[in-house]
């Protein structure tokens, strides 16, 4: 190789190396092609039941290509989405916001398209009034999210373990066992006394705590002015005391939710009941596996209906196709879309039309002994009262109260110490 050629080769190599560094960060996929082709990305956590719907949408709109991106855990989804928003790039064109995230992101509404500007006002009648209102920033502010599901509540129970403990197994009779939480605990004591081999009656008290909070309606950890009132709100204290009673009465299997023991516990029958908001059905089915099909059933929750969880679809302002993204979100949250999603993955509709739909009411779940899930979850859904959630509700619940309760279950803290610990952490989380 001649000297000149060598010099050129070196230069080219160095320039290539340097330009490679710059090239990585560029996102080139967002511009519409000449033929009007539009690529949309939908970001969700867990399974929203959108696969069939998206396929249908692409058939109806040949110029639109939709990519579904899903992160399994909400805990992983939230920081990712936040980083995308902070960086101004990377987020999907349609993103799912869970109620906890929604409240936190509402403090920065400039990150999301005001859907009213896209003509969303005509959709209002399709949603439960409070679901619609919560998607707005204040009564007159922009609308940043269209409602997807609401958290209907029920209790899932193992029929085989109930039979072993000589408790009724029919879902009507089981529901009658526990009109109140105290009677739920009494039933649990009967169950544990029967020594079925299960580690406890209910998986852990944290899910019951969430259920009780969501039944309370009105407020939890925050008041209407977003002031932390966890220490003084009787609703919180009441739910706490009942949960502690479950631990002291030996009703809890003390298996932390989402742990390896919890996942295996569904298969092994380590516990007989767990709280199930409708989105939990899919998780129970996955964890229990095909071998346990037909062993689970769905009964009413003690203390009446409650609203646990639920999400919205929003369009980040960084989307290159806000108009098309809104159209897609509108389709996915339409009454028909919500029924289809429920059928596929279990999120309970937030649209009164969907809730009245005979097709929805007739839905049953064969894994759960053909339980009429449409009827069970749909019945109370329209009368659900929204809970006022402060901006850090989710953090206070999951990072202050739940660990404190689990520490009691592990025998590491007394209930009094744990309560103090929870309040202390809550203040830190709410900062």
């Amino acid at each position, binding site marked *: 190789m001649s000297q000149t050629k060598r*010099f050129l080769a*070196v230069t080219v190599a160095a320039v290539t190396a340097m330009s490679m560094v710059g090239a990585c960060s560029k996102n080139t996929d967002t511009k519409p092609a000449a033929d009007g082709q539009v690529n949309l990305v939908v970001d969700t956590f867990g399974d929203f039941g959108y696969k069939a719907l998206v396929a249908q949408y692409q058939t109806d709109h040949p110029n639109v290509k939709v990519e579904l991106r899903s992160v399994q855990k909400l805990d*992983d989804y939230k*920081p990712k989405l936040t*980083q995308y928003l902070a960086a101004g790039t990377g987020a999907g064109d349609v993103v799912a916001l869970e109620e906890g995230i929604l409240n936190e992101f509402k403090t920065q509404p400039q990150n999301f398209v005001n859907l009213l500007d896209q003509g969303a006002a005509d959709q209002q009648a399709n949603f439960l009034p409070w679901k619609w209102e919560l998607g707005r920033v204040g009564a007159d502010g922009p609308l940043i999210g269209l409602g997807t599901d609401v958290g209907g509540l029920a209790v899932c129970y193992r029929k085989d373990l109930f039979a072993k403990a000589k408790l009724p197994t029919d879902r009507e009779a089981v529901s009658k066992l526990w009109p109140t939480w105290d009677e739920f605990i009494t039933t649990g004591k009967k169950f544990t006394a029967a020594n079925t081999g299960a580690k406890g009656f209910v998986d852990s008290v944290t899910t019951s705590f969430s259920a009780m909070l969501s039944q309370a309606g009105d407020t939890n950890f925050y008041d209407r002015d977003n002031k932390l009132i966890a220490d003084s709100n009787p609703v919180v204290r009441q739910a706490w005391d009942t949960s502690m009673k479950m631990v002291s009465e030996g009703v809890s299997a003390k298996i*932390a939710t*989402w*742990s390896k023991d919890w996942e295996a516990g569904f298969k092994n029958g380590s516990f007989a009941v767990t709280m199930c908001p409708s989105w939990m059905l899919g998780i129970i089915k996955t964890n229990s596996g095909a071998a346990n099909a037909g062993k689970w059933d769905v009964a009413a929750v003690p203390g009446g209906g409650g609203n646990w969880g639920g999400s919205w679809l929003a369009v980040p302002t960084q989307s290159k196709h806000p108009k098309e993204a809104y159209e897609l979100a509108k389709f996915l949250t339409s009454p028909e879309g919500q029924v289809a999603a429920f059928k596929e993955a279990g999120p309970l509709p937030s649209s009164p039309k969907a809730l009245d739909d005979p097709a929805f009411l007739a839905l049953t779940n064969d894994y759960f002994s053909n339980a009429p899930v449409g009827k069970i979850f749909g019945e109370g859904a329209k009368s659900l009262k929204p809970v006022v959630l402060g901006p850090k509700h989710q953090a206070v619940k999951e990072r202050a109260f739940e660990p404190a309760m689990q520490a009691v279950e592990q025998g590491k803290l007394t209930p009094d110490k744990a309560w103090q610990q929870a309040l202390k952490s809550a203040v830190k989380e709410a900062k």
Partner: protein
Amino acid sequence: MTSSSVIRSSAAARAADGRVPWRSRLTRADMKYAPYFFIAPFFVLFLVFGAFPLVYTGWVSLHDWHLIGDHTFVWFDNYTALFSDPDFWNALKNTVGIFVLATVPQLLMALSVANLLNRKIRARTFFRMGVLIPNVTSVAAVGIVFGQLFARDVGLVNYVITAFGLDAVDWQANWWSSWIAIAVMVDWRWTGYNTLILLGAMQAIPKDLYESASLDGAAPWQQFWRITVPLLRPTLVFTVIISTIGGLQLFTEPVIFGNGRMLGGTLGQFQTVTMYMYETAFQRFQYGYGAAIAWSLFGLIVVFSLINLLIVRRAAR
């Protein structure tokens, strides 16, 4: 006068002469600048992915910086808050504790395994490669498998323990049991890596040293402590520092052990500094405070590496 200035002055002289062929001028430029181009990719990459984030993180740490909200300059408030933050001290205690619990047995094991592999045994290459297998395993897979081994109700470890008539251990609930479980994960993964490094250094030790030691009647263990270990000193320093950096940044193992949560157990029994940093920056969105934790960790690693360097130098003298 340095050699480059010789070239430069003579080049200048010839340029003034005006009769230097184009080709030889290119050659000279090639000789002069080509080395810089060859090493440029590293420095460009280091500046973009190493130095810039470091400096920028320092800048962020002087702010009250909400990830998607406001940025206010607050001088060193984040650092002063950090030093009176019990959660930070708890995380630091856990990190150092797990680091000591994992690193000391790890390096001792690596040293003895390397010594064994340095002998004439059958299928040497097989065993030498074999010790590295845990290291190429995905850390997430390691976490998942060990998370299952150390599960309270369905874990294999508790199954064995109870078979011996002992009580099952709630591995996540106590600080000591969670530290042990995490240290085992770390050791399983990194012992082989250090073994290979130490083995490489052992093979560089001249054989005649051992031969003359044998002639003088030195037992194998005497040879090991009097010849092998002192001559391995620079390599030992290297492994210690690498383990220190890795150990203080411990993240994935405890996260997966704690079911993917950043809390590190109900009372933070095994929350490490990096977990606390992640929780602060990406779950509480206090980016400035998280950056302050990151910089404090950087300082700690420097301090710890220096301390280790001194200890290892003294011990191996």
